[in-house]
């Protein structure tokens, strides 16, 4: 096992990694920008080194500074956390070139899944379901009709050269196909000077479902069930839950097994997440995140598996001892992402936290690097706390979440706590009957 690990990140995720290391008896080195000298993980780490000025490009994305520090402090491995350099294949390669371990996947898998086109091709090869559609451009109305008949209505006709919604038409049934096809071609011609269109299945109310996997690159892979991340605003996840209120056991086991087999076939190593859209019982691959996810704690809450510990163990070369049959799902978990933002305008609100009081008691976990008197710097992501709640049932979990939101205090700056307090009272959320566009529609309607 490693003696010392460098944590190449900041905020709550750096603290999360520090905690896992401490609990494994591994010493930690925190690197930080000059804006983060007072950060919690810097205070708690065994060693800390200031690597640059506030802008990320010169600190948390500064590969040379991080590698120099790693060499100087004599660490065995680097944990990249979430964001920043965590999916940077070049950085992972450089870490290896320095004779250190990158706590994450192999560089080639970072590169593969970092390229949207390659990733989709790889997904097909690996047997992952993707959104069905025409192979390339559709040349005629007859061909469009034939393809649409195969994949089923509604279908989306899209300009091959398109983007931004232009040259995009939905046909909800065969009756609408001819008009939609012609209009899409005309719009495509007008907008892009190219009338080529292709066709794919149109998802009207998909959920965002992602499957957590762990693999050791030594022939072992398991899935840890799904997370439902359909509550989004501008493609940013706001609240996640596990298991999904929209999935049954059959669907869960089916997609879990598909994901597991895909990872075995790929020879993937480390933790990873396969993201899907889910509608009418079918899954459609979107992308793979080759790193830890922000919302990983809800999976930890229902499985009892410490994902960061497993990631570190795998990186140290230990074959996984967990087998699929060891994984059972216990109860329900929800994570609220609490951002330093105005709860209605979402304008960032950095500044000094006067009071910080996390909720306590049974089934409650708070991952946050805040403390009373801490100054949230204006240079980084606005995520400041993750409130994670577990209950034996979804209803118990919701009731507990509600009382936690009553107890939690973050004073001095604006936060999205009030948004979460409104959300937990909403019948659509309580029923679990939301899809990925619901939150934005609801917020627009209830300004």
């Amino acid at each position, binding site marked *: 096992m490693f003696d010392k690990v460098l944590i190449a990140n900041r905020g709550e995720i750096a603290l999360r990694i520090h905690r896992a290391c401490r609990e494994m008896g591994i010493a930690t*080195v925190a*690197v930080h920008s*000059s804006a983060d*000298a*007072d950060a*919690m993980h810097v*205070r*708690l*780490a*065994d*060693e*800390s*080194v*200031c*690597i*640059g*000025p506030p802008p990320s490009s010169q*600190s948390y994305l500064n590969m*040379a*500074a991080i*590698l*120099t*520090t790693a060499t*100087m*402090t004599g660490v065995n491995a680097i944990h990249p956390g979430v964001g920043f350099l965590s999916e940077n294949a070049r950085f992972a390669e450089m870490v290896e070139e320095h004779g250190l371990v990158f706590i994450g996947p192999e560089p080639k898998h970072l590169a593969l899944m970092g390229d949207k086109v390659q990733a989709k091709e790889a997904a097909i090869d690996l047997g992952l379901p993707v959104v069905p559609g025409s192979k390339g451009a559709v040349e005629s109305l007859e061909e469009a009709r034939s393809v649409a008949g195969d994949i089923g209505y509604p279908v989306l006709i899209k300009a091959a050269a398109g983007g931004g919604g232009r040259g995009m038409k939905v046909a909800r049934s065969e009756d609408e196909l001819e008009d939609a096809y012609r209009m899409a071609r005309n719009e495509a011609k007008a907008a892009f000077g190219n009338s080529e269109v292709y066709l794919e299945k149109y998802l009207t109310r998909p959920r965002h479902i992602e499957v957590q996997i762990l693999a050791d690159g030594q022939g072992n892979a398991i899935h840890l069930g799904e997370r439902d991340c359909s509550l989004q605003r501008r493609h940013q996840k706001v609240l996640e839950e596990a298991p999904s209120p929209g999935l049954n056991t059959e669907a869960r086991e089916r997609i879990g097994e598909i994901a597991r087999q895909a990872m075995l076939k790929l020879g993937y190593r480390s933790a990873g997440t396969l993201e899907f859209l889910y509608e009418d019982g079918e899954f459609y691959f979107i992308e793979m995140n080759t790193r830890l996810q922000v919302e990983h704690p809800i999976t930890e809450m229902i499985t009892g598996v410490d994902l960061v510990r497993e990631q570190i163990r795998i990186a140290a070369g230990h074959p996984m001892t967990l087998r699929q049959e060891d994984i059972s799902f216990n109860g329900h978990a929800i994570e609220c992402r609490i951002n330093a933002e105005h709860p209605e305008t979402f304008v960032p609100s950095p500044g*000094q936290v006067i009071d910080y009081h996390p909720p306590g008691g049974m089934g409650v976990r708070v991952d946050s690097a805040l*403390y*009373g*008197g*801490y100054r949230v710097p204006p240079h980084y992501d606005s995520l400041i706390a993750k409130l994670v709640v577990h209950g034996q049932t979804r209803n118990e979990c919701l009731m507990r979440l509600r009382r936690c939101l009553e107890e939690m205090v973050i004073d001095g700056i604006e936060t999205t706590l009030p948004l979460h307090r409104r959300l937990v009272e909403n019948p659509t959320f309580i029923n679990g009957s939301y899809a990925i566009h619901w939150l934005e529609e609801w917020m627009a309607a209830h300004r």
Partner: protein
Amino acid sequence: MNQKFPLDEEALRRLASILEDTGLTEIEVEAGDHRMRVAKTPAVTSAVSAPMPVAAPAAAQPTAAPSDLAEHEFAVTSPMVGTAYLAPEPGAKPFVQPGDSVSEGQTLMIIEAMKVMNALPAPRAGRVVRVLVQDGEPVEFGEPLLILE
């Protein structure tokens, strides 16, 4: 009596901004029969509010206590994390020594990072008062390296 009070708001706001920048707690200015005074009581809690890790982590070499010298008016701080070398090669004469006068742009020391030797030029002409690091010592970004008056 309807005499307006002659309030120079701009001057007042300038005083407030000077107070803020300088970290002072009080400024008083008098000119003829005009007098202005601004004051700010420092917030009490911020100092104690920060949780301290219990077992104060034994700071390793590179963590070198964040010295107040970084705030020193004449400090030259490290532009990067790396290893400081005071001489062009082992055993050679140091680039500069206390008491030396240097011209702007003159190399003060070398910071090695990723096997690249980065010369540290003097930001201005002046006299070297103290060299704060040892040859071969790891330095952080922003760490004071020498005092150049």
